[in-house]
């Protein structure tokens, strides 16, 4: 990225290794001074503006569009419709791999959900394009919309999430329930939620012959590149994608969606660069969301509070034309030991854009239900919720029986509970009040998220001047990749972070894998670590085989790289700088590549998860039913922490998402039309600062030799799990009212308080 100058921030002080240091964001100065260029900030010469027209019906057909009226509007250049669009190289409805989702790119006049793109107006100004889109005045043939969790015949999906079986059985659940001393059965509902990244999906696309240049926020540069290549029938080397910064993605920018594809098509149609930016309400449809769920949990426990059975069934929805199933019940796979566990899913099809990955897909929805149910059964057993969880602590992964690669959950429980003051919690609900008479309640939840890895590659180089280069097409979504990965890179090549030119965010760099599944630091970090080791090994070869070097004869294993020098391990007085080695060898630059990938042997042997424990205090007005979270403590064990400052921010963010899940977020769908009625940030509520209490994050050190060479597990999504359930359980503890429909609303509490 020649246009980026990430070292413009004050030079970082380094104490020992770079990994583990709480460096501030290296892109922070660019961002707070407005110099960080996001996709929509690009304006290539001759650029036109595109505006999507979207469907106001959820099901049916577009019968007519007044294209002539739109074209008559001053400034409108062209109108792209199903009848007037550039041809694609393949049918976009063909799923060429499991990470391809069907998209609406004006294939036909059929409408499958509200806010589906039905035309694109291209104009000299944004205002003209917007008005042109309004002038299309579509007429529809309307069919009754399928809406809600009971919209039609249910079915068992072939897989849920990414390739997980829809059902899991372990032991005899019915026998376990029958033998139980205490049983609970409860149904929990979670609403549709939308990612609502601050930065809407945006693209600036320019064609030069058959070369394509794209500015677009993406969590998956290479997946997007491959999808564009097959859709437009061009080879990878003719496509250049720049995605230096994302204003949030949360899973909605991982895969190539319809709207950016329409931007590329529009640029092709008019032969000029085109910018297409979604309006906020247009993000409620074609770019994914979290599907609603209805989850039934049945739990049994023996006289000592040991689970005898855990049955978790989740109903969810997918679109009428593609398959993605929120794997909510899978949250019950790993947390609690029970001799019998069954998880199952079914689904109905509704007129919606296809649901997709949204921060902790399955884990978030499943966790709030499971953690609520665990609280309910603990109460049935007359046990403290933490004591109950410890009683049912999974020493091995319950269904697979595998040992955990590492699991410091006990320490999380202990440290979190101590910091929170959990020991003083009365067992009975509705026992605590504050000075103002508000009801006070304490609740907890266990957090969990798998430690995943994808495939990545990196290129490392050492230059004649002794500086380093690390190249990897990694993605900074705001989580801090520019900083944390650069720290790993610096350690990998034995240099200070400001002596390594860290390049990321473009598609011409080696594939970093997708920034998703909380796996980016682990995946990209492993590739960086391996590339760095490889280039140092090559440098060491140069030195140790050259009799003019003080390191001659030391052998590869006999040197270490530190502060820009190779040093004899057994005699630190003998060393040589990188610059000296390369100068003598007459080499301008020495390079090597490395890869990062999951280790199948380790995965076969171990269950790999991050864990945590979240404790929440809420206050509830006893007459008005208004709830406010007043305190949250989260203790998390997620392997090695590369940058404590970034990690703390990630965990804060996750906990706020959890609070939001429990108390705020819900997309309201009109049950007749299938339209989302609150598709804006004024009415789709996420917490404001005043809703977020003081948050306390504890990271529990974990040395995990199995997950990957660096021992990194990932922290992107775990914060939301556990947190939502902790808030819900605290509301129960404050009031004695168990609300099972989320978000918890005033009316649910009002009548029962």
């Amino acid at each position, binding site marked *: 990225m020649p246009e980026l100058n990430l070292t413009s921030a004050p030079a970082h002080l380094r104490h020992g290794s770079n990994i583990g240091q709480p460096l501030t964001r290296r892109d922070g100065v660019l961002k707070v001074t407005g110099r960080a260029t996001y996709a929509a900030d690009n304006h290539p010469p001759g650029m036109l503006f595109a505006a999507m027209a979207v469907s*106001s*019906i959820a099901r049916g057909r577009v019968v007519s569009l007044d294209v002539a009226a739109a074209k008559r509007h001053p400034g409108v250049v062209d109108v792209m419709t199903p009848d007037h669009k550039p041809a694609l190289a393949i049918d976009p409805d063909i799923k060429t791999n499991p990470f391809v989702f069907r998209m609406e790119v004006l294939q036909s006049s059929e409408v499958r959900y509200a806010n589906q793109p039905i035309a694109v107006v291209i104009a000299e100004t944004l*205002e003209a394009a*917007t*008005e042109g889109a*309004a002038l299309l005045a579509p007429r529809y043939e309307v069919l009754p919309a399928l809406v809600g969790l009971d919209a039609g015949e249910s079915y068992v999906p072939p897989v849920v999430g990414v390739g997980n079986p829809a059902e899991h059985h372990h032991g005899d659940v019915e026998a376990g329930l029958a033998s139980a001393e205490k049983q609970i059965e409860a149904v929990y509902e979670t609403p549709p939620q939308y990612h609502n990244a601050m930065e809407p999906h945006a693209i600036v696309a320019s064609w030069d012959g058959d070369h394509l240049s794209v500015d677009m926020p993406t969590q998956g540069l290479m997946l997007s590149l491959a999808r564009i290549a097959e859709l437009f029938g061009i080879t990878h080397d003719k496509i250049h994608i720049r995605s230096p910064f994302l204003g949030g993605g949360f899973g909605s920018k991982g895969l190539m969606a319809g709207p950016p594809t329409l931007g590329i098509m529009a640029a092709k149609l008019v032969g000029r660069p085109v910018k297409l930016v979604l309006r906020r309400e247009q993000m409620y449809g074609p770019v994914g969301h979290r599907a609603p769920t209805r989850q039934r949990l049945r739990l049994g426990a023996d006289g000592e509070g040991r689970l005898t059975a855990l049955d978790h069934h989740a109903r969810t929805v997918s679109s009428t034309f593609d398959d993605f199933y929120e794997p909510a019940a899978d949250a019950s796979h790993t947390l609690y030991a029970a001799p019998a566990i069954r998880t199952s899913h079914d689904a109905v099809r509704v007129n919606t854009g296809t649901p997709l990955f949204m921060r902790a897909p399955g884990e978030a929805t499943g966790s709030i239900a499971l953690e609520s149910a665990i609280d309910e059964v603990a109460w049935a057993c007359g046990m403290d919720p933490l004591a109950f969880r410890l009683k049912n602590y999974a020493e091995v992964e319950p269904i697979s029986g595998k040992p955990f690669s590492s699991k410091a959950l006990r320490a999380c429980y202990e440290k979190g509970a101590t910091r929170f003051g959990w020991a003083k919690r009365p067992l009975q609900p509705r026992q605590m009040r*504050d*000075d*103002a008479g*508000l009801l006070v309640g304490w609740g907890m939840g266990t957090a969990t998220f798998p430690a995943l890895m994808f495939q990545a590659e990196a290129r490392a180089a050492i230059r004649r001047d002794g500086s380093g280069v690390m190249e990897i097409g990694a993605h900074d979504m705001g989580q801090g990749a520019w900083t944390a990965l650069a720290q790993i890179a610096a350690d990998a090549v034995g240099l200070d972070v400001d002596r390594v030119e860290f390049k990321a965010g473009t598609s011409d760099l080696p594939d970093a894998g997708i920034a998703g599944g909380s796996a980016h630091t682990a995946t990209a970090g492993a590739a960086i670590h391996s590339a760095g080791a490889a280039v140092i090994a090559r440098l060491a070869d140069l030195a140790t085989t050259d009799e003019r070097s003080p390191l001659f004869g030391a052998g590869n294993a006999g040197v270490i790289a530190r502060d820009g020098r190779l040093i004899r391990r057994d005699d630190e007085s003998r060393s040589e700088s990188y610059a000296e080695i390369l100068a003598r060898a007459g080499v301008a630059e020495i390079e090597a590549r490395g890869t990062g990938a999951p280790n199948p042997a380790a995965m076969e042997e171990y269950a790999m998860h991050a864990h945590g424990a979240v404790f929440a205090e809420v*206050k509830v*007005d006893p*007459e*008005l*039913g*208004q709830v*406010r979270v*007043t305190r949250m403590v989260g203790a998390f064990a997620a392997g090695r922490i590369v940058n404590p400052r970034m990690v703390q921010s990630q965990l804060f963010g996750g906990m706020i998402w959890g609070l939001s899940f429990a108390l*705020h977020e819900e997309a*309201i*769908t*009109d*049950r*007749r*039309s299938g*339209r989302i*009625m*609150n598709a804006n940030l*004024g*009415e789709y*509520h*996420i*917490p*404001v*600062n*005043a*809703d977020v209490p*003081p948050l306390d994050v504890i990271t529990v050190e974990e040395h995990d030799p199995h997950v990957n060479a660096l021992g990194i597990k990932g922290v992107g999504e775990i914060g939301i799990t556990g947190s939502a359930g902790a808030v819900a359980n605290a509301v129960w503890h404050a009031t004695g009212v168990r609300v099972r429909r989320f978000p918890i*609303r*005033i*009316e649910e509490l*009002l*009548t029962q308080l």
Partner: protein
Amino acid sequence: MKQFDYVRPGTITEAVAAAAQPGAVYLAAGTNLLDLMKGGVSRPDRLVDVTHLEGLDQIETLADGSLRIGALVRNADLAHDADFARSYPAVAEALLSGASAQLRNAATVGGNLLQRTRCAYFYDTASRCNKREPGSGCDASDGENRGHAVLGWSESCIATHPSDFCVPLVALDAIVEIEGRTGRREIALDELHRLPGDAPERESVLEPGDLIVAVRLPPAARGFAAHARYLKVRERTSYAFAVVSAAAALRIENGRIAEARLALGGVAAKPWRARAAEDVLRNVAPTADAFQEAAWRALADAKPSGDNAFKIELARRIVVRALLLAAAGTPARLPALPASPFASTSGAIHA
């Protein structure tokens, strides 16, 4: 977006003439209007920008003790005016509980009075809405309507007026000064907004060209300063409209209520003055029982317009609470979380 004319008149008379034309609307801060235009909900032919008119941004105390607030005074400036906040604490509290800091910095007094409903079906141009398109029908009445009106609604419209500011103003008998084609006139704020009846598109009694130039609080409004609160239940602590709100103001003499003022927000197409409740509080001791009785009176005519029966119960409770808080006395300092039930919570660290 749709092309429109933009005019910036130099005088109030020119403004009134320009805005009296069909298709013309006034533009002040635009915190509501511009969103409506971007969404295609309002498609005016002409914007008459009044923000440069002289003399409309003053807060002045008149000889008779009235307070006159120019229509262009910003919400934030008014709320942070120390004299104003001391004399009319419930109004300041309501202002600071509205919208967000950024919006309050821009929004004007006159504009606040005339903001449009937040009914989602009004904003969704694909829905039928009698307010937006007279005679088309009301998709809210059988739709997602837990936030809709419980008082004064009609078959043709169940929308609410979303203002916080108007609620204590109407309780304090605020007067609206209007400049129109036939000169200046004034009406009670309580008479400004219309209930929907069979013409929900007519939201106020204003005629084409009418410009609100000031809001006046009569001398008696100061008499409630020692016992005045605004309370707002909302689904997040800032940047959310009221589910239900209440302004309560009491004049307490010798341990008895000499005069009570009560108004509700978020329950009807206008800020809802609860005179029947005020009547039962006259000359009684400020007790919880009396306030319960007042709350029942205030909501006696309420009925759900959809999935919103809870709002009636919530409104009763918030009336009781607001009256109790008012009776306890106006706090010396405005609470850190204005109008929130959590304002008195220790540890509330947000402004």
